[in-house]
C-alpha cells in the first residue's frame, strides 16, 4: 500500500503535472465564479486534452478543475449575491450580507478556508473508508432515496425568510416547475402545451440562473441611485486577515465537521450532489445554532456550513467511483471516461488492479485543494476588484455571462427565452418578498423524489416497504421530527413576538 502510495505521489508531483493542475485549478475557479458557467463544462473542455496525457496526469488535472470549481462559486455568491454554481446557493444567504455589510474580504476568506477544510476532511474519509461506505451507498434503493428527499424537503422551513406561508408557496412553485417537460421515467411530455420551447422541460440550471442571477441583477439596477455608495457594489475595502480567518473557521469545529460529513454522505449517493449538500449543511447548522436568528444576516457559521458542505461532496462523489466504478455525478462520469479511454477499466477491482492510480488520485485531491487555497488567497484581491467596477459595467457584463452560460449548457436557443421568462418570474417573486431558495430546492428535489417514488412502486407495489426498510424508516422519522421542530420554533417565536407587535401576517 505504501509502495502504491509513493508511486502515485511520484507521478502527481512531476513538474508538468503540477503545472497542468495549477492551470486546471485556476480554470475551475474562474468557470465556477461566472454565473452560468459550470464545473461540468470546464471538465468537458479538459477531457480531450487528457486523451494525450498519462492516465493519472489527466485525472489529476480534472480533479484540480473539480476542486477549484467547488470553491469558485463562492466568489460570485459573496460578491454579487448570485450563486456561481448550484452548489453555492446557501453561500449567498450569509456571505452576501457579510460582504455588503463591509466585510467582503472576510466573507471570501471564510468560504475559501471552509472549502479547503471540507475537501481535506472528505479526502481523509475517502482514503480510510471508501470501500465500506460505497457498499452501504450501493445498497440504498429507491425507498431510501425517496425518504431522504422527503427529509431534504423539510429544510424549506429554514429557508423561508420572513413568512412561512410565502416560503411554502415558493417551494410548491418550484416542485410544479420541475414537472414541466418530459416525465423522468417514460419521456412523455407534460405541461408543454405542444410548445417546442417547453418540450425539453425547464433545465434546473436555467431556473437557477434565471431566478437568482436575473432577479439579483435587476434588483441592483433598481437600487442604483437610492443607495449611498453610488457606483461600486461594495463600499470601501477591505481586509482579508487570511490567518485570523483560518483560526476563526477552526473555532467552529463542530459545524465544520458536521457540514463536511453531510457533504461526504450526500456526495457518495449517486445523483444527489453538491446542490443539495450545501442547503442541508446550512439547515443543520442553523438548527443546532444557539443564535439561529443571526442566520441570513451575515453569520460566519452560515458561510462555513455551506462551503464546507459543498466542497466535501467532491471527495464524497469519488467514494463510489473509486471503490465500485459507479459515478456519483456527471463530473465523475467524465472522470471515469477519461480513465477508460486509456484502457483502465474502472470498477470494484480498480484499487487492486491499479493501486498506484487510486492512491495517486487521493494525493491529487490533497494537492488540488492546496492549489485551490493558494490560488484563492493570492488572487482574492483581484476578485475584489470586481466590486470596484461601477454597476453600469458589471451588471450588463454578468448578464451577458449568464446568457452565454445558459446557452452553452445544452446549446439550445430556446433555453434563452426560458431564461428571460424565469428571470422575470424570479424578479416578480423577489419584489413581493417571496424567498427564492425554497423554489430552487423544489426544482432540484422534485424530479429526484418523483423518479424514486415511481421506481420504488415499480419494484414493489407495497407502500409499507418505505417503513419496513430501516434506513428509509429512520429518514422518514427524521423528516417528521424536523417538521415538528420547525413548527415548534415558529410557535415559540410567535409567542415571543405577540406582546410586542401586532401581527399582520398569519404566520
Amino acid at each position, binding site marked *: 500500500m505504501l509502495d502504491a502510495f509513493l508511486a502515485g505521489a511520484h507521478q502527481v508531483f512531476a513538474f508538468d503535472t503540477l503545472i497542468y493542475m495549477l492551470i486546471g485549478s485556476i480554470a475551475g475557479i474562474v468557470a465556477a465564479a461566472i454565473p452560468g458557467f459550470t464545473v461540468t463544462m470546464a471538465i468537458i473542455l479538459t477531457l480531450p486534452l487528457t486523451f494525450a496525457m498519462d492516465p493519472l496526469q489527466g485525472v489529476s488535472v480534472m480533479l484540480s478543475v473539480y476542486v477549484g470549481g467547488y470553491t469558485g462559486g463562492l466568489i460570485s455568491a459573496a460578491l454579487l449575491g448570485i450563486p456561481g454554481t448550484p452548489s453555492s446557493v446557501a453561500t449567498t444567504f450569509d456571505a452576501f450580507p457579510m460582504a455588503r455589510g463591509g466585510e467582503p474580504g472576510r466573507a471570501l476568506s471564510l468560504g475559501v478556508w471552509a472549502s479547503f477544510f471540507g475537501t481535506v476532511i472528505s479526502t481523509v474519509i475517502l482514503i480510510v473508508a471508501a470501500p465500506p461506505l460505497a457498499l452501504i451507498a450501493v445498497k440504498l434503493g429507491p425507498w431510501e432515496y425517496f425518504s431522504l428527499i422527503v427529509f431534504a424537503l423539510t429544510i424549506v422551513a429554514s429557508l423561508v425568510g420572513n413568512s412561512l406561508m410565502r416560503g411554502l408557496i415558493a417551494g410548491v412553485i418550484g416542485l410544479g416547475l420541475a414537472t414541466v417537460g418530459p416525465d423522468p421515467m417514460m419521456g412523455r411530455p407534460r405541461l408543454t402545451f405542444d410548445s417546442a420551447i417547453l418540450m425539453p422541460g425547464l433545465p434546473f440550471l436555467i431556473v437557477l440562473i434565471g431566478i437568482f442571477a436575473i432577479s439579483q441583477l435587476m434588483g441592483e439596477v433598481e437600487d442604483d441611485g437610492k443607495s449611498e455608495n453610488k457606483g461600486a457594489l461594495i463600499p470601501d475595502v477591505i481586509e482579508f486577515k487570511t490567518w485570523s480567518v483560518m483560526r476563526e473557521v477552526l473555532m467552529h469545529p463542530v459545524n465544520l465537521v458536521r457540514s463536511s460529513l453531510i457533504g461526504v454522505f450526500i456526495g457518495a449517493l449517486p445523483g444527489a450532489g453538491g446542490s443539495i449538500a450545501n442547503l442541508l449543511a446550512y439547515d443543520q447548522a442553523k438548527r443546532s445554532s444557539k443564535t439561529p436568528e443571526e442566520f441570513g444576516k451575515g453569520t460566519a457559521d452560515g458561510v462555513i456550513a455551506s462551503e464546507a458542505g459543498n466542497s466535501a461532496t467532491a471527495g464524497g462523489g469519488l467514494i463510489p467511483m473509486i471503490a465500485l466504478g459507479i459515478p456519483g455525478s456527471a463530473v465523475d462520469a467524465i472522470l471515469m471516461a477519461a480513465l*477508460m479511454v486509456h484502457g483502465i477499466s474502472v470498477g470494484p477491482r480498480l484499487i487492486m488492479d491499479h493501486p498506484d492510480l487510486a492512491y495517486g488520485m487521493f494525493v491529487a485531491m490533497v494537492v488540488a485543494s492546496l492549489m485551490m487555497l493558494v490560488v484563492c488567497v493570492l488572487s482574492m484581491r483581484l476578485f475584489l476588484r470586481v466590486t470596484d467596477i461601477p454597476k453600469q459595467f458589471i451588471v450588463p457584463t454578468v448578464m451577458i455571462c449568464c446568457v452565454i452560460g445558459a446557452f452553452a449548457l445544452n446549446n439550445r436557443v430556446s433555453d434563452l427565452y426560458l431564461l428571460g421568462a424565469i428571470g422575470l418570474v424570479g424578479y416578480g417573486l423577489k419584489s413581493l418578498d417571496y424567498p427564492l431558495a425554497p423554489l430552487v430546492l423544489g426544482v432540484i428535489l422534485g424530479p429526484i423524489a418523483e423518479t424514486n417514488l415511481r421506481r420504488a412502486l415499480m419494484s414493489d407495489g407495497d407502500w409499507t416497504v418505505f417503513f419496513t426498510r430501516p434506513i428509509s424508516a429512520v429518514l422518514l422519522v427524521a423528516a417528521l421530527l424536523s417538521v415538528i421542530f420547525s413548527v415548534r420554533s415558529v410557535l415559540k417565536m410567535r409567542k415571543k413576538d405577540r406582546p410586542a407587535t401586532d401581527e399582520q401576517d398569519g404566520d
Partner: protein
Amino acid sequence: MFRKIAVAAGLMAAAIAGPAQAQDYPAKPIEFIVPWGPGGGSDTLMRLVAAGLAEETGKAVPVINMPGVGGNVGLAEFANRPADGYTISQIHEGLLISNGTGITELNWDSFMPIALLTSSPQYLTLSKNDNFSTFEEMVAYAKEHPGAVRAGVTLAGVPHLHMAMIEDAFGIQFSYVGYEGTGQRIRALVGGNIDIAIGDVSSAGQFVENGDLIFAAVGMPERTAEEPDVRTFKELGKDLDLAVTRGVVLPKGTPQDIADALEANLEKVMQNEDVRTKIQNVGSAPVFLGQEEYKTYLGKLSDTVNRLVGKLAG
C-alpha cells in the same frame, strides 16, 4: 476600383462554389452535434471519432452536446441545419424506439445515414440472488413466477427493447423498473434492488470478475473476445442481436459527393489503430458499415422495433 470589385466577385463566386465541391471537402471545421449529454457512451465514443476525423481531415471537429428528450432535441435541431456536410450528427437504436413509441416524428430515414461506426455488445446480466444463477434457471424461474423477475431498464429506451426481445423469444414475462443509464442499472443490480439488467463490459465486467454479478448471455452473433465464456443467445436457442450501434448521419438533401467524401474519411478514421484501441478500451467494437449497408441494417432494425413497440409504450 473595378479590379477590386472583380476580385471580390471572384472570391464570392469561389466561396459559393467551394463547399459544394467534394474534392475540397472539408474546407472548414465540421460541427458534430451529439444529441446526448457529456460523459455517456455516445459522448465518449463520438469524441473519439471526432478526434480521429479532425486528425484525418486536418480541420477541427468540435463536439456539441445537445441533450434532451432522449436525443430528440439535438436531432430536431440538426434536421434544420444546412445540408452542406459541415454539421454531422449521430444516431443509435434509441431514435427508432422514440419514433415507434410516438415521442418524435423523426426516424432514421429523416436523415442520410453515412456510416455505422461502433457496436457495443450488450449482456444479459444477473444479480447474485437465491432464485437463479444461470440463464436457464432464470427462464425457468420466470416461467414459474410471471412478473416476479425485476428487470431494470430505461423505459421506452434501448434496454427496454432488448428485454422485450428476450421476453418475446423465450416466452417469459418480467416486471420493469425504470432506471436512466447503464451505470444506474448496474448499481441497482449490485445493490440487489433489481434482479436482471442489460449491461456491458465497461460498466459491469469487473463486478462479474469479482463474483458480484453474472453475465448470463451476450446478444452478439458470436462470443466476444472479452468474455469468451459467456454464451450467445444463438447458442441458447434464439438468434437475438442485442447491441447498441452508433453511426454518423447527415441532414437529408446533402449532395451525394459530400456524403461519399465523409464516408471515405470516416472509413479511414476507423482504420486508425489509435482510435480503434480507444474505442475498444471503452468497451465497444470499432466496425464500419458504409451508406448502403448501414441503411439495410437500420431498415431491418426498424422492423424489429415496430413488431415489439406495443410492449414498450406501456
